[in-house]
C-alpha cells in the first residue's frame, strides 16, 4: 500500500482577461508541478506568503476546483478519475476548515442545524432519537456546550465559531482534514486554544491533517513536516524539527529571519530581504526566488532547480542549498 494521500505533478493556471472584449492577457500559474505525499496520521504543514498558492492547493486537493494536470490519490483511489456522483460520496471522507470563521457558517442556521446538514447532504441516516445525542457528542468533542449548539453564529465569539466550524468538518468522521489558516483571524490566546483542541482531536481520532498557514513558528510547532511554497512552486519540504537549525532553501531561511521572536535582546540584526513577492503573471524562467535571493548566481535565472532529496524525507529546489 502506498501513502495515505499522494499528490503528483499537480498544476493549475488561471487565465486573466482584460482590455477591450476581455481577451486573455496573461496566465497565472497558481500551482506549478507540485508533488508530495502525506502519511496516515501525519500533520503536514504548508507555509508561504500571500499569493503563493497555498489555498489554491487546498482547493485542488479537495477537487473544489479542477486541475490542469496531475493526480491526487487518497487512500488508494485517484479522486480526479471519479464521476460527479462518486466524488460527492467521497467528500464525506475529506473535509475542510476555513480561514474566516465569521463567513464560513450560514448566518441564518443555528450551529445545530449546520451540524445536521452534512447528514442530509450525504444521505447518512440519522434517526431522530439519536440526533440530539450525536450532535451533543460532537459539540462536547470540540469544547462547546449543548446551549451553544442552539446559538446562531453571530452570538458566538471568533474562537467558538472556529470550534463550530471544526465540529462541522468532523460530524461525518472523515479521515483527512485540510485546515486552511484556521487561526489567522484569531487572537493568540484563542489560537492556542484551537491548536490544543486540534492536537487532542488528532490523537483521539487518528486524523490526518494538511495544515495551511503563513505563520512559520506555528507550523513548525504543530506539524510533523513542512512544505514551503513560493509563487506556486514547492521550494522546500523539511521535517519540522530541523527547520530552525538547518533550512536548505534561502527562502526558508528568509522566512525564519523575518520572524519577530518574543525574546528581547536577540534583536534581528540580519539584513531583511528586500522587495515583495513578484506578480505571478507570466513568470520568468529559472528559480522563482531568484529576484530576491541573496545568493543568486547566473544559473538561477536560467534554469529552474528541481526538487532534490535532503535528509529525513526532506527535499529542496535550489542550485546552491544552504546546508
Amino acid at each position, binding site marked *: 500500500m502506498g501513502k495515505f494521500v499522494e499528490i503528483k505533478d499537480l498544476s493549475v493556471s488561471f487565465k486573466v482577461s482584460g482590455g477591450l472584449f476581455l481577451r486573455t492577457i496573461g496566465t497565472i500559474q497558481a500551482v506549478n508541478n507540485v508533488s508530495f505525499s502525506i502519511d496516515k496520521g501525519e500533520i503536514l504543514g504548508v507555509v508561504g506568503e500571500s499569493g503563493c498558492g497555498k489555498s489554491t492547493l487546498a482547493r485542488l486537493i479537495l477537487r473544489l476546483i479542477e486541475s490542469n494536470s496531475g493526480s491526487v490519490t487518497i487512500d488508494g483511489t485517484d479522486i480526479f478519475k471519479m464521476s460527479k456522483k462518486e466524488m460527492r460520496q467521497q467528500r464525506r471522507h475529506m473535509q475542510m476548515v476555513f480561514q474566516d470563521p465569521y463567513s464560513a457558517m450560514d448566518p441564518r442556521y443555528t450551529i445545530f442545524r449546520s451540524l445536521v446538514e452534512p447528514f442530509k447532504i450525504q444521505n447518512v441516516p440519522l434517526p431522530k432519537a439519536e440526533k440530539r445525542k450525536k450532535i451533543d457528542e460532537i459539540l462536547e468533542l470540540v469544547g462547546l456546550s449543548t446551549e451553544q449548539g442552539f446559538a446562531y453564529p453571530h452570538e458566538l465569539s471568533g474562537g467558538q465559531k472556529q470550534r463550530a466550524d471544526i465540529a462541522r468538518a468532523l460530524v461525518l468522521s472523515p479521515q483527512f482534514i485540510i485546515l486552511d489558516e484556521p487561526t489567522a483571524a484569531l487572537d493568540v490566546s484563542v489560537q492556542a486554544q484551537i491548536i490544543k483542541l486540534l492536537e487532542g482531536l488528532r490523537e483521539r481520532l487518528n486524523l490526518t491533517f494538511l495544515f495551511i498557514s503563513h505563520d512559520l513558528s506555528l507550523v513548525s510547532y504543530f506539524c510533523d513536516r513542512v512544505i514551503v511554497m513560493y509563487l506556486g512552486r514547492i521550494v522546500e519540504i523539511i521535517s519540522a524539527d530541523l527547520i530552525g*537549525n538547518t533550512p536548505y532553501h534561502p527562502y526558508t531561511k528568509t522566512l*525564519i529571519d523575518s520572524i519577530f521572536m518574543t525574546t528581547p535582546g536577540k*534583536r534581528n540584526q540580519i539584513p*531583511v530581504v528586500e522587495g*515583495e513577492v513578484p506578480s505571478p503573471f507570466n513568470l520568468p524562467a529559472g528559480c522563482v526566488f531568484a529576484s530576491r535571493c541573496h545568493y543568486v548566481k547566473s544559473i538561477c535565472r536560467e534554469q529552474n532547480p528541481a526538487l532534490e532529496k535532503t535528509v529525513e524525507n526532506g527535499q529542496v529546489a535550489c542550485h546552491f542549498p544552504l546546508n
Partner: protein
Amino acid sequence: MSFLKVSDLEVEFRVDKNTVKPIEKVSFEMNEGEVLGMVGETGSGKSLTAHAIMGLSSLVGGKIRGSVKFEERELLSLAEKEMQSIRGSQIALIPQNPMTSLDPVYRVGDQIVEGLYKHVKISKRKAKLQVLDLMEKLRIPKPDRVFQQYPHQLSGGLKQRIVIAMGLCTNPRLLIADEPTTALDVTVQAQIMRLFKEMTVDKGIGLFLITHDLGVIAQVCDKVAVMYAGNMVEFGKIETLFNTPRHPYTKALLECIPYIGMKKGTLNAISGSVPSTATYPSGCRYHPRCPHSEPQCENEMPPFINIEEDTQVACHLYQEKKG
C-alpha cells in the same frame, strides 16, 4: 520633563441608556524619542486608547476623562480647534488598515501632499518635492511613478509605506501607529518595522506602537503596556516584562505563543474567553480565568502599583514597593 503622560484615562459611551467604559484606568508615561508598545487582544481597548489620546473618541459621542499631557500641555482641555492644530502636525496617527484608509479615487501622492499642505505653510510645488524626498527615504521604488498612481495599483507593502509617509510628512513629535503591519506578509513586516525604527528613533520622534503581536513588541519597543479587557494590567521595560512577567495574564499570554523549536504538546492556552464590555466581571477583570484567583480578586479591583523601578502591575499578588 515628561513627553507624554497619560493618567487615569477612561472613555465612556452611552449604549441604550446604559453607560459602558471600554477603557478605564489607563496610565502610562513616555519619554522623548522612546518606542512604547501597547499589546492586548481584540477588544481590549488598544485602538480606543490611541483615539482618546488624539481626542478622537469625543467626535463619536464618547466622554473622555482623566488627563493626557503632551509636552506639559493638557490635551483633554483643549478646544476642538486647538486640538486640530496639534492633530496631524505634532501627533500623527497611522490608522489600522492601509487598504481602507487611502481614498481610492485620488492619486496617492496628492493624498500625502494634502496633509502637508494643510498643516505647514508651504507652496504646493515645494510640498510635492518634499513628499517625493520622503517617499525616497521610505525606500519606495520610483517615487515619481508611484506618486501618480492610485491605491489599487499598489501592493500592500507599498500602500503601508504611503500611509507612513502621510503620518511622517509634517515631522510630528509623536507618531501613533495602530497595528501597522497586521495585514502584511512576514518578510514585508520585517522591512516596514525596520523602516519605522529608522524614521522615528533615529530622528527623535516618539513612537506609540499598538499591536497584538508580542514578537513585534519584543523586537521594536523600549517599554510595553499590556491591556486586558479595557484595563492596563502591566507596564514595564521590555527586558523586565519578557524575562520576568508579573501579571498572571502577561505570563499566560507569553506561553500561548508558539516558537520554532518548541516541544510538541507544551503550548499553553488560557481557558475561557475575553469578556465583552457589557459583561466585565467585578474586581479584577481577569479573575475568572486566573489560576491564582482569591476572594479578594472578585471584590476589589487591584490598584496599579509600582513594584520595581519602571515596572507597574495591577494584581493583588504583589505589594507596593515603598521608597
